[in-house]
């Protein structure tokens, strides 16, 4: 095995069959890909493209119809490999009658962790995912966002080398999404490998080093995010706001160099950045109304 490879999938095919063995659907068709150590790899695709199936095949929850899978150098069916894997399912399938502390303690016990280690790690993770205030509440009382957070905590309880995240940001508010992305990047900084699948493209773009796009169970595109998104034939210049005269002069300069101006516009901020800024301001100045940083505000000042 290549030392750098954490996941190796070759010619993986998965066919779902009915009770009588008749073919129902071909969920994956000859998928081959490789995930390197220390990278964040995104599996993209519309619903039903085979992302979650791939993840479940990697975890041994499903059995391949054809092809081969190696995870951390071992076959997917090997239970011992799970010692170094963390998994966040699409819905956080956790025991709803346990509270956050009990949940992490239970999953911690399934690894070779002492009681002291479990206690420390649980406390650390509960704080990290921002559930310190709700750690004694049963999970059935949690909101979806809180369940995702505790789901992530259980995936990280064993300090895994490989983290598999199925739709990690689904159900999270923008703040939670931002936290999740930050934590994913932290994992990368710690040298861990992350394989995530999502159909929220912006989230993937923000964190992934490489992506693969699946459609109809087949691999359509794979590569580094920046390489795939780089527009080779265009140049973008971003400046502070310019007057109409200055814009005309720029157009003349571009024309002089045989260039062609596509669009010149005054871009707006994203709704996400506005939301995050509002929440941040509200935290810092409670009780005060937040005034967005608009041209009108600048003119008034």
């Amino acid at each position, binding site marked *: 095995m290549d030392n750098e490879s954490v996941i190796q999938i070759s010619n993986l095919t998965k066919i779902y069959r009915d009770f009588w063995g008749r073919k129902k659907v071909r969920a994956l068709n000859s998928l081959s890909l490789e995930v390197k150590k220390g990278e964040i790899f995104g599996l993209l695709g519309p619903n039903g493209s085979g992302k979650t199936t791939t993840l479940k095949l990697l975890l041994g929850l*499903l059995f391949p119809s054809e092809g081969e899978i190696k995870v951390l150098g071992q076959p997917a069916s090997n239970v011992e490999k*799970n010692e170094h894997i963390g998994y966040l399912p699409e819905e956080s399938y956790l025991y709803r009658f346990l509270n956050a502390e009990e949940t992490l303690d239970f999953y911690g016990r399934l690894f070779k962790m002492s009681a002291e280690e479990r206690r420390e790690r649980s406390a650390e993770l509960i704080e990290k995912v921002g559930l310190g205030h709700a750690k004694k509440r049963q999970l059935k009382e949690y909101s979806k966002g809180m369940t995702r957070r505790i789901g992530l905590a259980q995936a990280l309880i064993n300090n895994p080398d490989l983290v598999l995240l199925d739709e990690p940001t689904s159900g999270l508010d923008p703040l939670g999404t931002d936290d999740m992305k930050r934590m994913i990047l932290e994992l990368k900084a710690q040298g861990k490998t992350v394989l995530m699948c999502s159909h929220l493209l912006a989230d993937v773009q923000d964190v992934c080093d490489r992506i693969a796009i699946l459609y109809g169970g087949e691999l359509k595109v794979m590569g580094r995010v920046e390489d795939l998104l780089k527009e080779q034939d265009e140049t973008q210049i971003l400046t502070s706001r310019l007057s109409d005269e200055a814009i005309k002069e720029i157009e003349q300069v571009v024309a002089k160099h045989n260039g062609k101006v596509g669009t010149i516009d005054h871009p707006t901020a994203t709704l996400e950045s506005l939301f995050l800024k509002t929440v941040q301001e509200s935290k810092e100045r409670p009780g005060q109304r937040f005034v967005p940083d608009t041209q009108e505000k600048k003119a008034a000042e």
Partner: protein
Amino acid sequence: MSFDPIPYDLFDALKHFLTVFGSTMFIALIVCLLVGVLTRGVKGIGDVFLGILDFFNQITHLSCRRIWSLSTLTIRESLRQKILFVFIIFAVLFMFAGWFLAGAADRPDLQIQSYIDFVLKAISWLVIPIILLLSCWSLPEDIRLRTIHTVVTKPVYRIEIVIGRMLGFTLLGSAILLVMGTVGYIWINRQVPESVQANLVSKVPIYGEIKFTDREGAPSAGLNVGDIWMHRSYIEGATKARAIFTFKDIDESDAINDELNLQSSFEAFRTHKGNMEKGGILYQFIFVNKDKGLRVDTAPLINKEYLENRLKINRKIMHESEDGKEKVEVDIFDDLVDDNGNLTIEVQCLEAGQLLGMARSDLYIRTPDHAFISGYSKAIFGIWLPMVLVIMLGVTISCFVKGPVAILTTMTIVLVGFMSKEYMAEILSGKMQASGAIEAWYRLITHMNSQTPLPDGPVKFMIQIVDMGIINFLWLCQQIIPNFGIFSNMREYVIKGFDVSWDAALLPGIVTVAAYILPCLIVSFYSLKLRELEAK
């Protein structure tokens, strides 16, 4: 119920287990190899053997830590599903039971029996169904809600999930049984009137072997008086007919206050009314030691019917010498027990025209009693054993079917194992005359009586072939379905005031449960191993 505690033949049971288990495994292996070859070619054979190795690998690498963790999860889950509400039902039952059970005040022995019967039945009828529901429902729910995904993606063997569930339910059920058993014990002690508290003991009987002789003194099987229940055989009064009981390994430790205690419950069969004022038919015990040529008879005794007759015989008996001239003192344990430790007692009916019926269990030597708690705790253990068996079956079946189906299947096995096991055994052994199901159906629709032979031809051939299949299926069911009747025997012992016999009741119960451990683990292992937990 025939209360005839027959010692359990462990070797025979082991041989039977190995035969059934071995042949089942062999057939399963052949089927797997065939399926493997048909679906995967030659590689399939290798896969089958790898699968077998995987079982041994997992079973030898079980982690107590993980199993314990899964067990505590099971317990916590059940507690938070409010299983302890069962105690409320239990408490309500006990608060009012005394009102309805006080009816037999004229027969304190029956009253004690009804109290013990009530307590033991209440406990088993409350605990076992609840545990059955929990054990059948738990794993399918885990699969349906996919919570199992977060467990099997940790370094956990699937067999550990099964064992964890089984252990968790066993611990939970044990704790419930312990509490209920303790409450029941206190309740019985408080309910039994002071005057008959002495009857609240665990009798320790020694049963012998029984043989009969006919009116001429020749060995026979005893007389049949036409009773459909052929449990007892009869001896004719005032003849040489005897019932000969031989008790093994008898010594003076079996005496109570230097007395040999004999307890009998013979049944009389009268050919004429006789003298009813005596209160029963006259009979006599004769102690026989062939080694010393001694025959020592007791004074005539009256057999009180439908009651236990307790006879306390001082170990020193005055006995007429052979010439009848002098009285000689003999010691039961020193002189009448033979060199091999056997005590032989002949029973003779003394009244002409009357018969006395008896079976092996109708005469026993009562040795020093044990405390009531001894038998009672074993009876509680007798509830614990089927509970464990139900848990094992429930969890195993729930590995391959959904919750409601698992409940129905387990319940059917328990009911068949409890009620129909002996019936099935009688059909299969040929003791019960029965035609096949299809033949019976054919006779029914053609109005043909059971004595008329079926006409020769293809119809008869087909009927016999199908019936043979059904009988073989019945045989398979009879082998696979556990005999739950074994466990209720323990309750019967205590209700009748006995300590629970180790070799006739406890050992068969323990062996029955133990026999299902490995098959249940194998079935659940392969059910979960071959199952895609994601597949719906």
